[in-house]
């Protein structure tokens, strides 16, 4: 049985179809990444899966239970890490876990028994009695993650879990998510960080304007949608260089501001030419998920 099954899902707000007929499947034990620019419909999809809002069309099944009809039962076995921290500022770290456990119907003794391991998982054993206001951003995120585990869920939803964190804190969250995957948990992650998706997700889907425009394993997506090598060229003369040479010697050539991106199967001639030419800095690298993302969703800003 799949842990999440979504088919033909639709949600409309006024004139705008925020989720415009998407299909998703999450197999037990996998990490699935839903990628998309701001406003793509990721958070709405997540809220639909939790049964917090009703779809205008399509079907959702979470852990075998139809949602929203049996959403409450489904939520007994899911954990949620929301986009914005909503830890309870009126309680200490430990009380946050205790009180949250109660919402799942855990008895005081049951919750208390689970807390030490969760605090250790979050690296907050020494901060059990601290007030939430005294925690750093990374600590709050880790506590939110620990809180999402209080009911020992089978499926965990994370909405942009590392937005706003410094690199150290992000790496720690990733490490913890890998631990959870090793324990056999299923993880549904939304993000707009490509490196996050590339590192963690077994499979992912790219969502834009309410639709899923590509899906597959990260490597597959890169192989399928984009040339394997990228040469980025910076500097004043980059535009002229692109017109005079770059465009002719790469499969695709794009400009964003002062930077030229050349996509190609063989970058030797580009690199050779650039080495001859002083004043232009460049970076030759393998294509990554971000290149796929930008190719599929475009380079213009989304606000």
């Amino acid at each position, binding site marked *: 049985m799949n842990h999440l099954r979504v088919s033909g899902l639709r949600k409309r*707000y006024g004139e705008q179809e925020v989720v415009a007929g998407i299909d998703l499947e999450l197999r037990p034990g996998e990490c699935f990444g839903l990628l998309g620019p701001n406003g793509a419909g990721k958070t709405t999809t997540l809220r639909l899966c*939790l049964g*917090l*809002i*009703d779809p205008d069309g399509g079907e959702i099944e979470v852990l075998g239970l139809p949602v929203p009809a049996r959403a*409450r*039962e489904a*939520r*007994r076995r899911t954990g*949620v890490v*929301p986009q*914005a921290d*909503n*830890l*309870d*500022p*009126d*309680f200490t770290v430990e*009380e946050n876990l205790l*009180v*949250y456990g*109660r*919402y*799942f*119907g855990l008895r005081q003794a049951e919750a208390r028994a689970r807390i030490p391991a969760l605090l250790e998982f979050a690296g907050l054993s020494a901060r059990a009695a601290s007030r939430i206001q005294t925690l750093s951003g990374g600590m709050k995120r880790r506590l939110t993650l620990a809180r999402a585990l209080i*009911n020992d869920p089978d499926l965990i939803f994370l909405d942009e879990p590392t937005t706003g964190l410094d690199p150290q804190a992000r790496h720690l969250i990733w490490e913890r998510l890998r631990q959870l995957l090793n324990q056999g948990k299923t993880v549904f992650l939304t993000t707009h960080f490509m490196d996050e998706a590339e590192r963690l997700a077994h499979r992912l889907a790219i969502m834009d304007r309410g639709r899923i425009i590509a899906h597959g394993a990260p490597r597959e997506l890169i192989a399928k949608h984009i040339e394997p090598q990228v040469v980025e060229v910076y500097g004043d003369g980059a535009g002229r260089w692109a017109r005079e040479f770059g465009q002719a010697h790469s499969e695709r050539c794009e400009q964003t501001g002062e930077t030229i991106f050349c996509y190609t199967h063989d970058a030797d001639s580009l690199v050779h030419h650039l080495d001859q030419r002083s004043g232009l800095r460049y970076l030759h690298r393998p294509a990554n998920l971000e290149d796929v993302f930008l190719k599929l969703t475009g380079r213009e800003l989304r606000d």
Partner: protein
Amino acid sequence: MTAKAYAVPAFSPRLLHVWRRNSLVWRKLAIPSMLGNLADPMLYMLGLGYGLGAMLSEVGGMPYIAFLAAGTVCSSTMMSASFEVMYSGFSRMHVQKTWEAIMNAPVTLDDVVLGEVVWAASKSFLSGMAVLAVASALGLVQSALALWVIPVVFVTGLAFAGMGLIMTAFSPSYDFFMYYFTLVVTPMMLVCGVFFPVSQLPAPFQVATQALPLTHAVELARPLMNGAVPGDIALHLAVLAAYAVASFYIALVLTRRRLLK
């Protein structure tokens, strides 16, 4: 969604988790919170009751301080319930997103909203009881009939909690609540028989005050505290209960529309 926003409320025992969460927070600051809640009504009751009361022979057939004590039990219940659902409730709903966190667990918005109303009624109940206890200690309570004030205060708390929650559901910010206090709570304090008998008002106003919940709370509590059985008990209770039920439903519909979209 529209149809669902108006659906009949569906509760579960999980609303107790919401109540309990709030009570745990309150317990941390129970003593200062109670003292803070009591100070204001006590100052009015004792200051006006003895100060102004010294110049008056009797009001409504009793010493002014006794008259005022019954009004103060009801008005402090109103104040406490209103403050709780508006300022604290808005913090939990909008600022801290506590409700959102709770709804990610197997607790629904209906449970959350009813849990909040019952919590605010419980907290305001304590305020009303504290005033009643002080009044009783000062010898302003005439007989054991005053024990019937206990359920009256709880229903009063429910009514004002529901009404305040309608404002919370609407409100874009804390500033908004000032309108409610200035336009609803303070006028009720003045015209519903807390400080002086409703019969002192011009006739059309007397009729209008019959539509206000605080009037009915006072008309029950005052005779009960002064050793008499109130008239029209069923009517007064029915008005308070109607306010409680209707305002709760309206608040729930508005909150659903605000949060579940």
